[in-house]
């Protein structure tokens, strides 16, 4: 499955990058979300894939045994997901607000403060 997931990660990255490079700020948001998914899935795949062996001990065990999945990437991704959620929520509202304040979704119209005379 690693290869398939690698392709999926690549696809997600490609899609995300393609979307953030659009001129529409709304597509930017969708692209950023996709990039978030891509990064999480990337770490997950890198951590190694194990089926049906969550890193949770059974009540009769005092330590994890056998071919359990690596808990560290899972913890990292969990943190990353939550952080990503916070950041994206802000980004979504920012973009909505920008659209409302400026009346445009086109990045071409959003460069007035960044032009070299």
């Amino acid at each position, binding site marked *: 499955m690693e290869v398939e997931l690698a392709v999926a990660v690549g696809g997600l990255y490609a899609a995300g990058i393609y979307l953030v490079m659009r001129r529409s700020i709304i597509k*930017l948001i969708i692209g950023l979300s996709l*990039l978030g998914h891509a990064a999480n899935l990337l770490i997950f795949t890198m951590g190694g894939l194990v089926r049906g062996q969550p890193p949770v001990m059974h009540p009769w065990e005092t330590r994890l045994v056998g071919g359990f999945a690596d808990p*560290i990437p899972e913890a990292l991704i969990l943190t990353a997901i939550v952080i990503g959620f916070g950041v994206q929520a*802000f980004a979504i509202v920012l973009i909505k607000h920008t659209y409302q304040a400026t009346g445009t979704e086109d990045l071409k119209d959003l460069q007035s403060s960044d032009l070299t*005379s």
Partner: protein
Amino acid sequence: MSNALPLIIVIPLLTAVIALSFRHRPGIQRAVGFAGSLVLLCASVPIFLCVLERGYLSTQIGSWPAPYGITIVADTLSALLIVATALVVLLISIASWIEIDPARESFGYTPLLHFLIMGICGSFLTGDVFNLYVWFEVMLIASFVLLGLGGEKPQLEGTIKYVALNLLSSALFLAAIGVLYGTYGTLNMADLAMQLRESRPSHLVITLATLFLLAFGIKAAVFPLFFWLPASYHTPPVPISAIFAGLLTKVGIYSLIRFFTLIFTQDAETLHRLILILAALTMIVGILGALVQKDFRRIISFNLISHIGTLLAGLGLFTPLALAGTVFYLIHDIVSKTCLFLFTSVVQRLGGSGDIRNLGGLYRSNPRISLLFAIVALSVAGIPPLSGFWGKLVLVQAGLIKREYWLVAAILFASILTLYSMCSIWSEAFWKDSSGTPVEFANPGRKASSIPLLLLAPITSLVLLILLMGIWPAPFFETAKLAAQQLSNPDHYIRTILGEKP
């Protein structure tokens, strides 16, 4: 003492939380913010002194030994940066007192500022790669919000660009961590350094190094990844851009220094060459950008980029001398850029505009303030005997010793152009007759007295610091040298964290 290290991160957190609970009382918020920064400074100075004495301070969060738990560690560089950060925050909170409008204050300016500082301090102190990511994110989200706070149109434009490019950087950083963990199975920097040093063929080192170079390069505003900086830094209220300019990009540079001195020391020739090329391009492209700008804050934004290149050059040269130069220059840059950005507010108040073409006559009307500006500007341009000169001197010397003559040429060329750019501000805004300015901007009635003391005091203290670093550089350079020695000999660092090698 080492147990107290996390306090540096928690003090801003608590300051922010307390300020948050007074969200409808801007006055109390201000007081809390000021007190918090004062406490931070008071806490960071003893830590700095202790680090000077012992070399390193480190603690394991939750008592979990390295590399299993998160390491918080201060070496001379970190400790120095912490003190600089605390100082800058203190001065900025004073300036914010009058520079930030009550509306922004009641919507969380003070807590946000301290959350930002928490992220910055965390980044300077952590010894764990993923933890660094977390502090980066704290810093980033706080900077996003601060940048957009107020929601004026230019602010929003700037924030969108800032957010998008920095999120791309975060995605890269995260991917880099994934690759790192997948390949080496550890996140502790010291442990990582040791694993990379050990015998087994180091996999994917260049790739990893490149990933981190890209991720941090965006944060540090290195060419060709700097676009977010000039797009956004001139849009928020002045104290916010001042603190961004003083500290944010420095975190990127700090991380680059940390990673490329501690972890990626293999196959250094290639990587250092790459860094040097990027450094030279950043210097030149940045300063050329400054030459064509007319907005005061945008001019210095581009200057900021150019000097990021200078800092990077020291890392690329990678000799103890060069690193010492970088550390010295880093401190100078924090102080002088913060000061310059605060100056934009003074100029705005006096001249009524941020566009230097519309300004004029400030030298005539406010000679003392002009003198302060001249000192900062000359220091930024690297004129002796001011703080900017010594760092540049050391970097040039290191470059010559390493026979990177083209790099030296780039540094010197960028330096004369910096002088040019500073002089054009001086010439336009200060020397030029105010009668040439459009009527709506000319307000000859404004005098120095209209600059509040709360703004002038931070500026003056920064200028004094610049003078001190310039006229009496020995103690500062000695500290920088100490930091550089530690950086170029990381074995002690590794041993401090991992204990004696089994």
